Every structure is written in C-alpha cells, then in structure tokens.
C-alpha cells in the first residue's frame, strides 16, 4: 500500500477526495453505467492512496469521454488489476495512452484483460515492454494492435518469456514497414510457425506470406492461417524428421515386396501443431502425415496399416458382425459409400476414448501378430522403436506400457496377458478384438483418458484405427494381391489428391452429414456422446474452414530455387500443358506470303546443311566388308616390305551429329506491346520469327519443337505446345503459330524445367533450347523482388546444362545486357535491337548454333 504516487500531481489528501467526489458526481449526471462501474471499482483503488485514486478516476473519466467503450473496459477491469498487481500507476498510465487514438477500445479491452497476468508472469519490466510493443502497434494500425492485445501473451511468447515475444513481433515490425504486412494476419500462424522454423526462419516465412498478401488477400490470409499448402510446405520443410512424401516410392516398393500390395499413398490433413502425426487410411489409400519421427517409424506405420487392410480390420462383413453384435444396424453408407464405426462407440459416451484405445490395442496386436511371420524384422523393429520412444508421461503411459509389453511378449514368445492371448489365436478377427477391448475396458486399472492424451497412448507407428470413414473391403484373409487393380494411378508419386475433400461441400450439406467433420482425426468430439450416434443430426462444426483456400494440385509440379534461403522448394510450381486454341490460318498464309523472299533465300543456304546419313566408315580394323581400296594399299605396302596395320574393313554407321532444338517463347502480356525500335507489335514479329524458324528447320531436317509459356502466380504456369517434336509441320501447326498472343506473366524457370522434360523424350545427341524473350522473368507473386525469379532462372539454366541441354536466349529487351549475363552466362544470349530483324535472325542464329 506504499505505492503512493510521487509525481507532481500530488495534492493534500482531502483535496483529492473532494475531487474524486466531484468527478463521480459529474459521471452520475452523464451516464448511469459509468457512474455505477466507477463506484464499484473505486473501493479497490482507494487503498493505494487518495492521489492514485484521484488520478485513476480522472483517467476513467477521460477515457469514457474519449470513447464510451474504452471507459467501460477500463472501469470493468480496474479492480482486478489493482488487486493482482498491487499497483495502480503503472497500468493507469499505460491505459491513458490509448486516448491518443480513436477506436482504440478493442485494443484497450485486450490490454486491460491481460495486463495483470503479464505482470504476474514477467514482472514490471516485462509488462512495460509488452504494453510498449502493443502501443507501438496502436500507432501503426489499430486492428493490428487489437490482434496483439487480444492474443494470449503466453502464446506470443511461446514459453520463452519476453524474449520470445520480442522475437515473434520483430519480423512483423520489419515487414509492416517493408511490405505493409498486417499483424492480425501474421499472428494467425506465426506462433506455430516459429516453433517449426525458429526465430531465424520466421522472417523469411513471413516475407513470403507478405508477398502473397499483396498479390491477393484471401490467399495471403490462408497462408498465415496455415491453410494454404504453400505455407505448410515451407514450414514442413523446416521440420526435422522423415518425410514420407519424399520417400513415397520407397515405401510403396517396400509394401509391394512384402505384401504384394500396391497401395497408393496420399498426404494426410495433419498440420504442424496438431499433435502427434499419425498415418490414417480410408481403405483405399494410406494417408501419410507430412513428417514422421523417423524412417523406421514410417516403415513400421505403412506395414502396420497394410496389415489392417490385409487382415480384415475394415472388411465389410466383419463390420456388419460388429454392428450385429452390438444389436445395431450400420447407418446408411455415406455419399461415397464409406462405412463408419462411430455409432459403435457411442454407447461408451464419455469414456469413449478409453475404449477406443483399448480396442485399438487389441486389434493392433492381432494384425501385428499376423504380419510378423511375413516380415521377419517387423516386430523387432516396432519393439525397438517403442523402447527408444520411451513411456509417455501421464495416463497415456499406462496404455503405452501395456501395449509395449504385449508386443515384447509376442516377439520373445513369452506368455501374454490372458485377455490378449485370445486375439493371437488363429481364428481371431476384429470381433474378437472388440470383445477383448470390452474386457479390458472393464478393468479399472486403466485410467480415464482424454482426447488430448489419446494419441500418446499408441506405440510409435501405430495409430487410431477409426479416424476416417472407410471404403468397405472385401474379406482378404491376408492377401492384398488384388489391391493394385483398385484404381489406376501413377505408382511413382504420391497421389495429388489431398485427404481433405470435405470443405468443398456446401455448408448446409456438411451439416446434414453426421460424419462431416469425421475427417479431422482429433476434432473436439465432445465426450457426451451427443454428436457421435446417428440419432439426431446436429450442426457439425467444421472448425476453421470457413473459406479455405484450396490450392490447385492437378498440374505437373516443379521445384523452384529460393536464393534467399539458398535451397529448392520442392513441388512449388504447378504447371499445366495447354493447347493453344487460337488458331489463325489466314494470318499464317499472310505471314508465309509476305516472307516468301526471306524464306527462299534461307532455303538455298539450308540445302547445304542437310545432315549426312549412313556414312560408311572406311579403313577400319574390323567391319562387315573388305574395303577394297584399303586392301590394295595394304597388299601393296606389304609387298613393298613394309608392315602395315590391317585397317582394311569397311563399316556402315550413322555418323551425323543429330541436333534437336526446342524454341521456348515467352508469351507474357508484354509481347502485345509495340516495340520502340520497329513497326507493329512485338507479337507480330514473334509469329513471323517462329514461322520462318519452323520452315527453315523443316528443310534442315532436324527434330524440333516450338512451345510457349505464360504464368499467373506459382500455381498456374501454362505451357503451350505449338509444335511437339513428333508433330509434322502442317497447316494446324502454322495456324497455331499465327494465333500466338500474349497473356499473363513469365515465370521462366518453370518453362525451362518443363522443356527439359520434353528433351528427355528425345534421343538426340545435341539438344538446344532457344529461349525467345522480351524482358525479365517476372510474376505476380514475386513480391517485386526481381532477383528471386532471376536466380531461379539461373538455376534452371544450370539444370539444363546438367541435363545435357544447351540453352541460348534471344531477347528483344534492349536492357537485356544488365541481367542476361548473370542468368545465362556470357556468350549464351543475344540481343536483337531491331525487332523487325527477328524473323530473319531467328533461323540464322539457330544454324550458327548448331554447327
């Protein structure tokens, strides 16, 4: 109580008391609520002295006059703050500063609601800094300040006190100034992101988000909410552990070898910060979390999941028996003909999770025991993993230990718990496991378990068996051989289809479906059982999925180089092969007739360039035929007393050095412009150039292709084939070339990478990639950072060289010499100053290059 203000405002006590009464009076005249709240709070303030009390009531009044809501917040929280913090002046001064801004009431409310807890946790200095940071945000933007004060300070600090808070907010401050990043967007995901990428990675993570936010609001916000796959990807790449996605083929090969089962793998909807990553299945695919603890765990998990499929955990007939046993009927299949076991769990009500764990335990043991003879090291590996993992803390440990012990006994052929022994019998099935689960459930030695602890109760590699609705399986009795027939798919890749399909439903529809939210493995399924039965459908809360940003995922993925982090971001760009349907046969005819002279001149020069075919190799040491001339020489030499070597054979072989060329044209909007140095639009010259190029190379006889690219952000790069290698130069191709027009932006790296794929199909020894461009590579989402796509293009060039492709850039950009040497290297580009020369120069450049 000694905290009497020492500032200049102190007056004799009586005077202060009078003033307080005056203000109270004043408030009473103005507002009943204000007067009442003030009177209620005042007794808690008075013990700190008359001066403090007077200053408090002045602040309350001023805040109330400034903004009624602010005043009310202030009054409402004051008593508590005073009591908890045992001081008044500190927060009073801070609160008073909110008067500087209009509409700061929400921020003030957040401040008042948390200040005492911050003070408790971090002391006075900590509280001061916390408030100071927030007040600085008030000066920047009030919605951001509100987000700051309303977010729980512990969450901001991430358990690291004021340092954690500082580290979290600093990048936002930098980016607010640099890119106008708002804090309320940033705070959505930053605390989770920080846990994954660390303080150092946070800035670059946020910068990318800020770029996206600039390009499109909903997309940027989805990024920060960690809903878009781009942000998840970046975060996941920073996570330690084994990435099933990168090893999808390996995992599938392993399953194929052991179980003769070709089971597709897909991404699960697991996100960082959502608890333990577990593998799930819908009976057709295995959904792998983005990261698992180790390679060993991923192998065990896939094998175990396959065992569930092979040994009929999800067989339709078995599930029906379960329902029959429970005296219930299976609810109708959902719209995708999937079954669910949920109604079976409903009778367990609040103790449902406890039963689930015990049932899974029995069922997992059953299928593992069946799998063990097929895969010799499966059990040893599982047990070793679990032993290294160690007993989890809390109640989950009891279950974990029980499961581990059962598996150890199985491995070492020791006696089992008699209850579990039943699932090891040869005729045991999922119904047996259910019965065993019920028996274990009756054992009070297993403590109650909550949904939060549930995941920890499982051994590594094992997971919840009923998290997803499942496509009913036929009974397999251990054979998965027919699995490969199930759906046609690309065996080398993870399926692009993501697990989350549900959010695309209309909201009303989602509410009608009782299992609408069933796809979230660890959702808040309230323990009362109300939501779980098939009884009255209740509104399903599809959490946090109001307006999800659904990334396009059906294209061809390519990586991109990020120079800021000096690494590739895998599958970053989505590329689509498109057909250019703007054909213009009339213009094609015009172009050909207008350029007839040039073409004739070219043709004459080209006749000389025809490649030689099937040239006989003469004077060989070995061959099909005697080379008569060589033989005569040889005999003559020999007769003359020399000892010539017997190079006397002739052999036929194809000798010409074949060159394949692909011309890749930048088809961005800029080619629609007029070029300062010539007549007409750039695109006119590009069309003519391509046309002459095609006609000329046709004469030479080299395999060639012509394509173009245009992009709209990283997830939509369009690649247009004007002429593929195996296509003939016909009128359709000519009409396509004549129909070229400019659109969108130029993400050159992706275009180059896709061209390299095309080259892979060609067997030519020399491969030439001619890039026709009119400016820098740029795209809408590069955040104005020119260097980003420059560096990416440079890396794509390097990849081209590594793939044995010789890249060469022809540009119409007069300022090309500023950046082209860095990207393509000196001597690997040429600048055409006069756009009108392009048509004539293009074939010439090619012919020069091919020599």
């Amino acid at each position, binding site marked *: 109580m000694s905290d009497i203000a020492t500032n200049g405002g102190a007056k004799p006590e009586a005077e202060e008391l009078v003033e307080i009464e005056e203000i109270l009076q004043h408030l009473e005249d103005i507002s009943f609520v204000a007067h009442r709240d003030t009177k209620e709070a005042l007794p808690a303030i008075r013990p700190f002295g008359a001066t403090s009390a007077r200053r408090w009531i002045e602040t309350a009044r001023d805040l109330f006059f400034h903004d009624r809501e602010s005043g009310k917040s202030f009054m409402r929280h004051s008593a508590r703050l005073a009591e908890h913090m045992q001081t008044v002046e500190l927060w009073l001064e801070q609160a008073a500063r909110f008067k500087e801004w209009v509409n700061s009431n929400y921020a003030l409310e957040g401040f008042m609601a948390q200040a005492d807890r911050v003070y408790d946790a971090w002391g006075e200095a900590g509280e001061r800094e916390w408030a100071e940071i927030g007040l600085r945000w008030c000066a920047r933007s009030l919605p951001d300040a509100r987000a700051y004060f309303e977010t729980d300070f512990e969450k901001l600090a991430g358990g690291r006190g004021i340092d954690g808070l500082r580290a979290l907010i600093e990048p936002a401050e930098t980016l607010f100034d640099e890119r106008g990043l708002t804090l309320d967007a940033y705070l959505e995901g930053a605390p989770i992101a920080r846990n994954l990428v660390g303080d150092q990675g946070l800035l670059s993570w946020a910068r990318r988000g800020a770029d996206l936010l600039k390009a499109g609001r909903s997309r940027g916000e989805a990024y920060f909410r960690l809903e878009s796959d781009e942000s998840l990807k970046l975060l996941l790449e920073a996570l330690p552990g084994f990435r099933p996605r990168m090893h999808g083929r390996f995992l599938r090969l392993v399953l194929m070898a*052991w179980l003769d089962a070709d089971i597709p793998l897909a991404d699960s909807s697991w996100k960082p910060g959502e608890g333990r990553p577990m593998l799930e299945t819908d009976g057709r695919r295995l959904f792998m979390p983005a990261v698992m603890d180790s390679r060993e765990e991923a192998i065990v998990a896939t094998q175990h999941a396959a065992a569930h499929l092979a040994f009929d955990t999800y067989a339709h007939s078995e599930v029906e028996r379960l329902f029959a046993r429970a005296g219930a009927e299976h609810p109708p299949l959902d719209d995708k003909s999937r079954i669910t076991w949920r109604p079976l769990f409903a009778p367990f009500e609040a103790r449902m999770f406890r039963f689930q764990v015990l049932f899974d335990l029995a069922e997992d043991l059953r299928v593992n025991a069946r799998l063990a003879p097929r895969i*010799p*090291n499966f059990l040893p590996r599982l047990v070793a993993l679990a032993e290294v993992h160690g007993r989890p803390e809390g109640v989950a440990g009891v279950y974990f230990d029980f499961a581990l012990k059962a598996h150890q006994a199985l491995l070492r052929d020791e006696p089992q718990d008699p209850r579990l022994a039943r699932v090891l019998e040869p005729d045991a099935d999922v119904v047996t496991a259910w019965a065993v689960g019920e028996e274990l459930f009756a054992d009070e030695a297993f403590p109650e378990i909550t949904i939060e602890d549930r995941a920890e109760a499982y051994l590594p590699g094992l997971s919840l068996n009923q998290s997803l609705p499942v496509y009913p399986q036929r009974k397999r009795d251990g054979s998965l051989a027919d699995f490969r027939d199930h759906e046609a798919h690309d065996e080398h890749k993870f399926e692009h289809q993501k697990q989350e399909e549900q959010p695309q439903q209309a909201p009303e529809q989602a509410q009608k479906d009782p299992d609408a939210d069933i796809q979230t493995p660890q959702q808040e399924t309230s323990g009362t059982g109300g939501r779980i039965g098939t009884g009255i459908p209740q509104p399903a809360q599809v959490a946090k999925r109001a307006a999800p940003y659904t990334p396009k995922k059906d294209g061809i993925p390519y990586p991109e180089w990020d120079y800021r982090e000096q690494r590739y971001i895998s599958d970053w760009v989505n590329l689509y092969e498109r057909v250019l349907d703007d054909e213009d046969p009339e213009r094609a005819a015009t172009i050909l007739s207008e350029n007839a002279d040039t073409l004739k001149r070219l043709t004459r020069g080209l006749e000389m360039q025809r490649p030689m075919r099937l040239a006989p190799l003469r004077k060989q040491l070995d061959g099909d035929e005697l080379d008569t001339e060589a*033989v005569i020489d040889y005999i003559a030499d020999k007769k003359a007393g020399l000892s010539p070597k017997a190079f006397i054979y002739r052999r036929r072989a194809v000798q010409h050095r074949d060159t394949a060329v692909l011309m890749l044209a930048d088809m961005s909007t800029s080619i629609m412009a007029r070029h300062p140095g010539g007549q007409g639009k750039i695109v006119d010259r590009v069309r003519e150039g391509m046309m002459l190029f095609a006609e000329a190379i046709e004469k030479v006889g080299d395999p060639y292709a012509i394509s173009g690219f245009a992009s709209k952000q990283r997830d939509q790069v369009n690649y247009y084939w004007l002429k593929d290698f195996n296509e003939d130069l016909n009128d359709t191709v000519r009409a396509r070339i004549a129909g070229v027009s400019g659109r969108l932006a130029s993400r050159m790296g992706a275009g180059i990478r896709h061209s390299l794929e095309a080259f892979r199909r060609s067997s030519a020894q020399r491969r030439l990639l001619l890039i026709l461009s009119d400016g820098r590579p740029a795209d809408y989402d590069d955040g104005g950072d020119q260097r980003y796509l420059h560096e990416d293009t440079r890396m794509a060039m390097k990849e081209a060289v590594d793939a044995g492709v010789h890249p060469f850039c022809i540009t119409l950009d007069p300022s090309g010499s500023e950046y082209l040497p860095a990207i393509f290297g000196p001597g690997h580009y040429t600048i055409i100053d006069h756009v009108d020369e392009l048509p004539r120069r293009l074939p010439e450049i090619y012919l020069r290059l091919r020599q």
Partner: protein
Amino acid sequence: MKNLINRIRGVERDVIEKPGDAGGAPFYKPQGDEIEIFQAAYSKRLPVMLKGPTGCGKTRFLEHVAHTLGQPLVTVSCHEDLTSSDLVGRFLLEGEETVWQDGPLTRSVKEGAICYLDEIVEARTDTTVVIHPLTDHRRQLPLDKKSQIIDAHEDFMLVISYNPGYQTVLKDLKPSTKQRFVGIHFDYPAEDVEREIVAKESGGLDADRVEKLVAAGRKARALKDHGLEEATSTRALAYAGELMQAGLSPRVACRAAMIAPITDDPELIQALEEIFDAHFPESEAA
C-alpha cells in the same frame, strides 16, 4: 606346337568338342518337363527356343542336356554389333591370298553340334534371316559370299534363347522367325527347388542361410517392373551364397550380388536393402 601343348593342358580347346566324362554333367535341377521336351525335339532335330528371364538357368540347362546327349555345344552370345558374317564366316587375308574362315554357326552345321545363339534379338536383324533355312525342313546354311549351300550335319541342332519382356518394341523377333521354333518356357524355380540349387551352387551354405536368402530373393522379385528391369535371379542368389561362403557377412554379400549389379535407383536400392536386411539381422555376423 604351343597350341598343341595348350590343348593338352586344357587351357585352350576347340569350339566344337564333345563333352568329356570328367565331372559328369553340369548340375541342373529340372523345374518341370523341360528335359523331356528338349530330348523329344532333339530326336527330331527341331530347333528350340528357350524363353525366360535372365539368370533362371537357360544356359545351364542347355549345358546339362548337351552333356547328357553327348553332343558338343557351341555358344554364341549375341550383341548388337554381331553381324551375319560373325556367325557364318568371312574371307581373311593370309599371305598373298584370301582365305575363307568358317564362323561358329557354319562349323556347327558342318560338324554336327548344338549351336546356341544366346539372346538372339540383340544381334542385327540380318543374322536372324541367315538362320531361317536352317530352321525348317531344308536344314541348309547358304553361304552367299562363297555361293555355296551347306546341308546340315545330321547331329546339328539350333537353339536360341529369348528373354520376353526384356526387349523393347523395337527389338523383338519377327513372328515369322519365332514360329519356326519349339518353345520351352523357363521361370525362376519353385522355392524348394531354388533352395536346393542355391545350396548346391554355393558349395554347402548352411540351410538356415539358404532359406533366408531364397525367401528374401523371392520378395525382391516382387519389385520387378516397378523400376527393376531384371529381377533378382537364381544366379544372383547363388552368387550371394558363394560370397557368404567366402566369408562375407550376409548383408554385404546380398548388396554385392543382388543390389549393386541390378539398379542405380536410390529408392529401389533402399527398398531392396530393406528386404535383405529384414531377413538378415545386423547382429548376424559372417
């Protein structure tokens, strides 16, 4: 003189030589009725085509039956530069004049031997045409360069091997060629047969290891066509067994004999290692 000495020492022998009695016939464990079919075909001198994946025992089979029949066996491994003159023969210069030298096929035709053209599709297409007249009732070998036709010796027999699936569309025998042969299909032997073979070939590897090795090899075969062009062959299993016998640890032996030779694909290597390692725990020393 030197040649004669070498011949006596057994270092060098003529292509066409009747099998000696020393050591008996090479080990071969029949998988089915292949021996009966071959003997029947031989009795009628019909050309035979051995089909089957690499390393499943085609060549060994032929060595075995040739030995039991007491017939010399001439094996020509075909490669993409093999021309018809390599089979039939060519003119060579010797001193002042040109001399004709018979190729292995011509010699077999003349002297009566089983001529085995291994992986015939690998050879240039002109070679397959040369064998046509030999494979029907004519049993003749035309020597265009010498303007001669040679009638085959009555003991002559033509055998080719052919590995289906291994060829690309571009490299396949013409149907007109294929239909001239009697086909015998081979595959990797059944598990117990394969165990016996590996035990025998490796020179007495203990039964436990043989069992594991064969079990692992059969699992590895499941990966064929998923990036693995050639499956783990019985031959490779036998090699691995021999390496273990020679003192290598099972894991090292498997890697050396069955993974390293067949693939460079890192994921496939991992998957194969996963299979072999599962059968041979790390604790198991050499």
